[in-house]
């Protein structure tokens, strides 16, 4: 195990996969000479050369389309889209080609493509640069969507994504790049479609993913002092979704709160709430609560931006309300 940042874990994984498999290549804006907007690809152009690390013009639809074509011909491109907000420019390629080529070709063609892209708020980047659009991609059959919360999962899930023969969208979060954690040395892949119990607990389940997992763990640690035992389930994989793990935890605690940085309506949290209703209805002692961002374009002003996003206090309130509603006393 080594202690490192989420950023470093992504960098090291890309480098290891470039070394391991000659078919792996990186494509994106500013990933070469400039070493990536967030320095994930630092040093890789110098080490692997422009054939393996391709800088592109500002043309998301074009370079994602190129990557899909390369993947259909047998390469394993890893695309970096500078932020998930810009992925909207490539959404036709992602949804209509990457996700569907295998089905439309009756399985004759595969698209072993990875799209890495960061998103999320709290960076004072204003409304068009602070979005969590992962639900858009998680909605599409044919895509896999991953959202690692820790440096270890960043390595494990990116490794699994690159080795997967189908298109995978890896959603990173700008707020996670500098977080640190223990990362297993050597080979480490996390199976796509498996959630993790990030913290075991008995009284209430909080389901979260990506950066919201850290928020949930923080709230759980503070509520522990009040005698409340919170179980945190980190989804890690948004599609396929580990419904069984979610329901198993709720069957254990009988209370559930879903946390997400995204807007409330039609989101990942709605899917989780429905999953619990289908899989653990008879075990629920209170309605499922959802904590999510305010349904507004995220403001630029720091105070307003933070007010619009869920925080530990909002989560703790929802947890305490749920417990109160069921006569729980710590």
């Amino acid at each position, binding site marked *: 195990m080594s202690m490192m940042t989420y950023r470093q874990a992504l960098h090291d994984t890309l480098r290891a996969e470039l070394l391991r498999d000659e078919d792996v290549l990186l494509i994106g804006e500013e990933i070469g000479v400039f070493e990536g907007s967030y320095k994930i690809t630092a040093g890789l152009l110098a080490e692997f050369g422009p054939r393996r690390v391709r800088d592109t013009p500002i043309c998301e639809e074009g370079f994602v389309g190129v990557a899909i074509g390369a993947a259909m011909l047998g390469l394993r491109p890893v695309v970096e889209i500078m932020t998930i907000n810009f992925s909207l420019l490539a959404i036709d390629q992602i949804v209509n080609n990457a*996700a569907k080529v*295998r*089905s439309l070709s*009756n*399985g004759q063609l595969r698209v072993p493509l990875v799209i890495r892209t960061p998103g999320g708020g709290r960076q004072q980047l204003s409304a068009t640069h602070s979005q969590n659009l992962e639900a858009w991609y998680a909605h599409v*059959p*044919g895509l*896999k969507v991953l959202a690692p919360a820790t440096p270890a999962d960043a390595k494990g899930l990116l490794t699994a994504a690159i080795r997967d023969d*189908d298109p995978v969208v890896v959603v990173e979060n700008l707020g996670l790049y500098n977080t640190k954690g223990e990362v297993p040395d050597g080979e480490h892949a996390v*199976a*796509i*479609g498996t959630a993790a119990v990030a913290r075991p607990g008995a009284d209430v389940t909080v389901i979260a993913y990506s950066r919201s997992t850290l928020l949930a763990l923080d709230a759980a640690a503070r509520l522990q002092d009040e005698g409340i035992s919170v179980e945190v389930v980190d989804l890690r994989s948004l599609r*396929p*979704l580990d*419904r*069984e793990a979610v329901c198993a935890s709720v069957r254990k605690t*009988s209370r559930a709160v879903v946390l997400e940085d995204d807007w409330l309506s039609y989101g990942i949290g709605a899917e989780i709430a429905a999953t619990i209703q*289908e*899989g653990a*209805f*008879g*075990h*629920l*002692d*209170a309605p499922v609560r959802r904590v999510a961002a305010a349904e507004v374009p995220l403001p630029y002003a720091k105070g307003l931006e933070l007010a619009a996003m869920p925080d530990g206090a909002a989560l703790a309130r929802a947890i305490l309300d749920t417990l109160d*509603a*069921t*006569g*729980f006393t710590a």
Partner: protein
Amino acid sequence: MTDVLMPRLSDTMEEGVLSVWRKHEGDVVHRGDVLAEIDTDKATMELEAYDEGVLARTLIEEGASVPIGTPIAVITPGGPVPDGTSEAPAPAPVAAPQPPPETVPEPPRPAPTRPPAPPPSAGLTASPLARRLAREHGVDLAAVQGSGPGGRIVRADIDAAVARTPPSAPPPSAPEPAAPPAALGADAEEVPLSRIRRLTAQRLTASAAQAPHFYLTRTVDVDALLAFRAQINNGLAEGGARVSLNDLVVKASAHALAAHPEVNSSWAGTRLLRHRRVNIGVAVALEDGLIVPVIHDADRKSITQISGEARDLAHRARTGRLSLEEITGGTFTVSNLGMYGIDQFTAVINPPEAAILAVGAAAAAPTVREGQLAVAAIMTLTLAIDHRVLDGAAGARFLADLVALLEHPLRILL
């Protein structure tokens, strides 16, 4: 595709336990075939198929209890449903050499049926967990005060209710504690439990544990009753059916119950039901348990009608050919061990009825008649009463009337 629903098999039934599947997924089913055996609150019944086809899917596991109206199986007209488990040919797939894009399996989708409706409890709100726990522990939600928002009943309320329940009242489906291993071995052999035996044990245990029994005993001078019976039987055709002493006790009881509706009642959890019909159960001992066929509207039937019906019911009880109607709806039970020479005994109430009459043998005994010692045929009656329904004085008045009827049998005909 037809859903098979948990049927209502008795008036008081709210749930049924699916004890055994007699048909299994993939079996061909004809109209009238027995699909399953259902334990109701009264008896074990056979569930027959109303449709032809294939039992495509069973939705309930053996031993599970579900409310009436809940889908328990699916019958398809032809073959099994597409994702069924049987060997019927699947529709030829359009050439699919590769697995579908999503290689990590999604969990199984919920069965395409409506979920079981919550038990009908008007005006009650309870969390799904609370409803499930209440069902498992036999807690009546109507009797629970909810502590959640708007009075919603939550788990904590059920836990508290269970904690208040005396441990002597086991949940209906709780497994019996295992016999100590020492009991087995060379000195004992285990006898497999029949369903009737198991059900008898469950119901009588519940009755003994839950109904506070008290007992009233009277002796009856039955000389007049025996003479009355002889008169009736002499009047009947030679070789025809004979009226028994028990038939007369049943008829007299029906008469007395009609005059004492407070005895013709039952305890329904939190409510007291007063029955408009007088339906008398007659306990019949079987090889492997007890069954209580019911003579409906006994107060409106003649003695010979009752006699014929009782004989027929007892015969068919012993050969296992009673219909559902014939074992449900009882409002009072007569249990007679006189023919075995028992002078006097007490009986356990057949729930939810309010009382049971234990009838001993009519035998010659010394008695006092008009201040003189005399020998007469004496019969002892012991009435067991559920104290939740009736108090001693009310029971005593009923028993006094019953004794008066038996000692002056012509009144039975009035």
